[in-house]
């Protein structure tokens, strides 16, 4: 174990490996809580779709599928760049890692920009959630519910994207300062896991909301 790495060892751990394992396990447990959080929404979705299959399909047609699809590819790419940045950090190419993280942040911002544009289009068409919906074709039981789910799910996801941007930014700064190495990359690894989680959730949101 190198000198520089052992500086990261907290008192309660005996080895750095153990500490890294603990952090990783902690992250997985955290990811489980996220799954249950979104799980509640997925359950609501299944529940209401069982009640209002037609209304859901109808309401889904009003969404901008092309934006959703574009965003899918944007997020997938960002996930890839984040994964690569971890690889660079491990092979001690700190600048490469930082560059890739910057690219990922750019993609994430693009995602949010698309999302924002999509919301503004939705609002313009009167696609409001719940009983606030203006679009006449969706003023029925089910239509408002679908839109409520749509805003809840994508909104909560967008919040996660925003947090993810912050996490990636911090990691980018650390990476550019050369904080990571083959021996010590736990923060970046965990940050990357968080970002992949955000991607994985979108992988489900996309077909459920746009591809009906």
């Amino acid at each position, binding site marked *: 174990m190198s000198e520089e790495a052992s500086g990261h060892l*907290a008192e*309660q751990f005996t080895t750095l490996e*153990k500490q890294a394992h603990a952090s990783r396990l902690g992250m997985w447990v955290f990811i489980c809580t996220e799954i249950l959080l979104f799980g509640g*929404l997925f359950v609501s979705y299944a*529940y209401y779709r069982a*009640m209002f299959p037609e*209304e859901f399909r109808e309401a889904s047609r009003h969404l901008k599928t092309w934006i959703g699809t574009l965003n899918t590819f944007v997020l997938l790419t960002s996930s890839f760049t984040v994964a690569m940045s971890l690889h660079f950090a491990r092979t001690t190419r700190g600048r490469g890692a930082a560059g890739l993280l910057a690219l990922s942040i750019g993609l994430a911002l693009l995602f949010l920009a698309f999302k924002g544009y999509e919301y503004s289009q939705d609002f313009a068409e009167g696609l409001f959630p*719940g009983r606030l919906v203006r679009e006449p074709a969706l003023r029925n039981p089910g239509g408002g*519910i679908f839109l409520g789910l749509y805003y809840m799910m994508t909104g909560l996801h967008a919040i996660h994207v925003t947090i993810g941007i912050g996490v990636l930014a911090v990691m980018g700064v650390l990476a550019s300062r050369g904080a990571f190495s083959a021996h010590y990359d736990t923060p970046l690894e965990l940050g990357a896991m968080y970002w992949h989680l955000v991607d994985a959730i979108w992988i489900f949101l996309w077909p459920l909301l746009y591809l009906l």
Partner: protein
Amino acid sequence: MPPAASEPASPVTYLNATRGVRAWLLTRDHKRIALLFMALVTLNFLLGGLFAMTLRVKLLFPGPFMIEPITYNRIFTLHGVIMVWLFMIPAIPTIFGNFMLPLMLGAKDLAFPRLNLLSFYIYAIGSLVTLWGMVQGGADTGWTFYTPYSTTTPTQIVPVLMGVFIVGFSTILTGLNFIVTTHTLRAPGMKWMRMPLFVWGIYATSVIQVLATPVLGLVLLLVAFEHAFGWGLFDPAVGGDPLLFQHLFWFYSHPAVYIMVLPSFAVMSEVVCAYAHKNIFNYKAIAYSSLGIAFVGFFTWGHHMFVSGLSTFDSGVFGVLSMLVGIFTAIKVFNWVGTFYKGSIDFRAPVVYVLGLLFYLVFGGMTGIAVATTSLDVHWNDTYFIVAHFHFIMVGVTIMAFLMGLHYWYPKMFGRLYPERAALVASVVIAFGFVATFLPQFLLGNGGMLRRYYSYPEKYQALHVLSTAGASLLFLGLATVLTYLVVSLRWGERAAHNPWGSKGFEWLSATPPPPSNYEELPRFTGEPHDYSTTEPQAVTEPGAPS
């Protein structure tokens, strides 16, 4: 471990290692954080208890008395909210769990000490937000927040929802920390099957905390949205279904009752062994039954919905699973009783609580089985029978376990002894007060007295008066406990290293423990609470200078 015979004037303990407000408020020492939690949790308990007393006083009379109906509704809501989320769920894990878990595992701290402190502050903020909501007028929905009442009530429900939401994060972080600690910070020789049963209980609790709480968070968020902005997923006018709310809410809240009770079982397992001076009757049965409760307990939530319009099919499924989850508790009960067999029992105040707990648990648990039989719940749902059922467990089990833990670990935590005689008297007062408060409520429920009732038909008055009288006794007993425990902090007799002669692993460190628990990590060679030999259970010098 023979206690250190002659201690130097004042050994370095976690209590006196550093001084000053900052050293306490910014500490990362799990033991200090435990004490921070203890202060706030006790305050919240007091508050919830005062609300309970207000309810009881109002219920002395069938008609309007002392407070308005709307005030009554707010008070029982706050009583429930405070007791459940601000007192009971954090109580044992954040105080005793925090304090004892690393000691028992032979670790120097939790895996994530900073997260632990953060968890405390989140809890503090959540409490404050809830209290702020209370000052703003408070919610009047009951702690269950059923829609569509909760989404349309004119009261200030949003701050209360947000307060609980915030506290949820604290619960999750604590659970996460405990899970990781248990997995990664076991000292050499601490095999899974050698872990103290307290650790098993807390571990199982943490699993539930981590998996269930996010769903609650989501549900609260949805209700708050619907109340504040008029849109959400439960609005019946656009096809939203109140039953979905109930599914999601109880998916959290039934496991949550096990979040409340598993730590009590954990304390019970330690205390029974320590005072019986006897190894646990069947270690594996207790350890695995905790996990059994944690997992099966997730799939019984529908037993709260038998008369809500739930399908007959689901009712059957939830009914059977409720029976299965009951069996794990029964296993524990019989194992505790078996532990006394051929023990060497030291009759002190905690043993009174142990006896009480056994009776209340079987009674409260069996009435849980009774309401889970579907057909009888059609009568009992939302009556005082239910109120009695859950107070028998939440007060009769959890408060008793909390009290026995306080007494058992008091010397460990503070290095002082509590007055035994006063403790015995108080424990008996509490036992009688408890039975007088809640036994009549079963009868009230049988007779058709409904919960959340401001005014009630006159025929129920006699039993209500009895219940209020009991509650006063209970209050008296608890106040006595609080008084002598606070007084003993300062004036209590200094405790020996291990005054109860316990062979729980937490006693391997010095009393009170030094800041980093063990100067040298122990290596465990024996089982916890093995009283059949006088061999040491671990190879190490306890942190105390000897």
